[in-house]
């Protein structure tokens, strides 16, 4: 297609504007590319001289910091297993059975899940966990997130299952499979990409969360990285920049890796409300 000169100038102006906005978005993050590798990092942006891994060595020598990453992992994986399993079963039932009141259940879930946010419900969630005797346990965080993430996970998966032809399972059942067999052997493998999306989404949500573990956990040995990161502050409350930078980068890596995985595998397709 031939471009006129004004159109060409327009194109360049558009690219420049897009690049400028991209640069503005990058600015606060650029610091994380350099400071972790700089043994004398400060809050200012500076090229490391020399580049070093000493900050990482210090972080990995800090048993509390390593424990916190492990805690984050336990909570995120535990939550994701619950969400993945429960949401798959529930979404399949909502899609394939004709239980009365399905529509009403869906509507009520939609309503409640958007009304009961973590920051509005922090008092009752604290009281429920307290009453259940689960205060300061991994299970408290796992269950709270499982409950909170489930409605959205169910909707993503139900849409996904609705788009799969029923004839898959029907032909399996004609061949003599029970409904449960048809679910596990025929439907489940086809639904798997949807489950992967839900699991990745859930993992990123729990891994990055601050408020819920912050109010439900007390002891250092249970704290996830999002809360433990505040231990890299001196007594006076000033941050120990070198450690914070290195730790932040390590803590962000799984999220970055999962993002790359999803965009490589599926393209970062848009799912309504993929993030809480």
């Amino acid at each position: 297609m031939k471009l006129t000169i004004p159109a060409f100038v327009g194109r360049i102006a558009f690219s420049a504007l897009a690049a400028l906005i991209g640069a503005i978005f990058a600015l606060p993050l650029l610091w994380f590319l350099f400071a972790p590798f700089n043994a004398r990092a400060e809050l200012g942006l500076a090229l490391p001289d020399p580049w070093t891994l000493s900050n990482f060595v210090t972080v990995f020598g800090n048993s509390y910091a390593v424990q916190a990453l492990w805690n984050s992992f336990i909570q995120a994986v535990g939550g994701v297993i619950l969400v993945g399993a429960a949401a798959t079963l529930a979404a399949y039932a909502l899609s394939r059975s004709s239980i009365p009141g399905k529509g009403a259940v869906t509507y009520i879930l939609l309503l409640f899940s958007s009304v009961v946010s973590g920051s509005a419900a922090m008092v009752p969630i604290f009281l429920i966990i307290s009453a259940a005797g689960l205060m300061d346990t991994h299970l408290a965080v796992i269950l709270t997130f499982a409950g909170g993430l489930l409605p959205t996970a169910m909707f993503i998966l139900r849409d996904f299952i609705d788009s799969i032809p029923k004839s898959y399972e029907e032909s399996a059942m004609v061949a003599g499979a029970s409904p449960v067999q048809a679910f596990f052997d025929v439907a489940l493998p086809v639904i798997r990409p949807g489950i992967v999306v839900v699991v990745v989404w859930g993992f990123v949500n729990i891994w990055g969360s601050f408020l819920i573990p912050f109010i439900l956990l007390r002891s250092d040995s249970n704290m996830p990285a999002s809360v433990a990161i505040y231990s890299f502050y001196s007594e006076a409350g000033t941050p120990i920049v070198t450690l914070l930078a290195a730790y932040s980068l390590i803590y962000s890596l799984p999220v970055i890796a999962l993002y790359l995985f999803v965009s490589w595998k599926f393209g970062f397709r848009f799912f309504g409300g993929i993030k809480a």
Partner: protein
Amino acid sequence: MTTEPIEAKPKKVRNFALLSNRAGAAFLTPAGLLVSVFVIVPFFWVIFVSFTNRTLLGRTALNPEFVGLANYLSLFDPATFFQRGQFGFSLILTTQFVLASALLGQALLGLLLAWLIQTVPPWVKRITETFVIAAWILPEVVIGFAWFAFLDRDQGTLNMLLEGFGLPKGDFLLQQPFWVIVVFNTWRGAAFSMMLFNSAFSSIPPSYFQAADVAGASSWQKFRDIGLPLIRGHIVTDLILITMWTFNTFTPFLLTNGGPSYRTELVSIYNYRVAFQDFQFGKGAAVGVIMMLINLAFALVYLSIGRKKKVR
């Protein structure tokens, strides 16, 4: 705690079901239990607690008394309502925050970005998208610290840049805390609007734009007369969702702690302070109830729009 995807497509109910009602009920049980205990029970429990003088510690922690509307009356006490650190101040602050950072900031910036990346070369699109999405998906504590470093008065990158351009430095977290969290939240959340509008623009048949090109329309004309009218439904969806998220967000706490002197204390942070720093669970629950009522209003609007779409 989370949001819901855009309404499912309507489905013809068939008489023949693959899963019997009993198996279906069994499949629904685990999710039903979890959602009941952690989403539905909290909704009713918070209403109950808001009528008591329950505290975190002390005698009333175990034996709370029924105090009627006392918590609500203290929240809406006209003598102190608008004072800093009080509920009214926080509510107004949050309203301004939502208007400035979600409706103006995120939505407009998202719209601009979505439109820009339709036409720019793929590599510009890739790089821009990467950073905008990174701002959105990285853990909130990391983002909070990144901005803390970015805005530092003495060494921060922003002041370094301002100095480079010959502009005066500033201690933004102290001097302009409200505008800091507005810019921060815009930056953090613009990706969602960008992606939603991007997928909306991509669903418009390219022939519409090609016809406009042939007629010699400018980019602005194409945006105003083709793009904007065709994605109107998406814009409404986007505005409601980002309003609800921004209203409930706790992330600015990680940057400003609600301060200095309550100047960035959004209702979510106010709720946290009342319940977990002042230990007044009853009053905190009352704040929670009001937040949920506001959420409910937005959710009902959103769902009614979803229903209309279904009917069409």
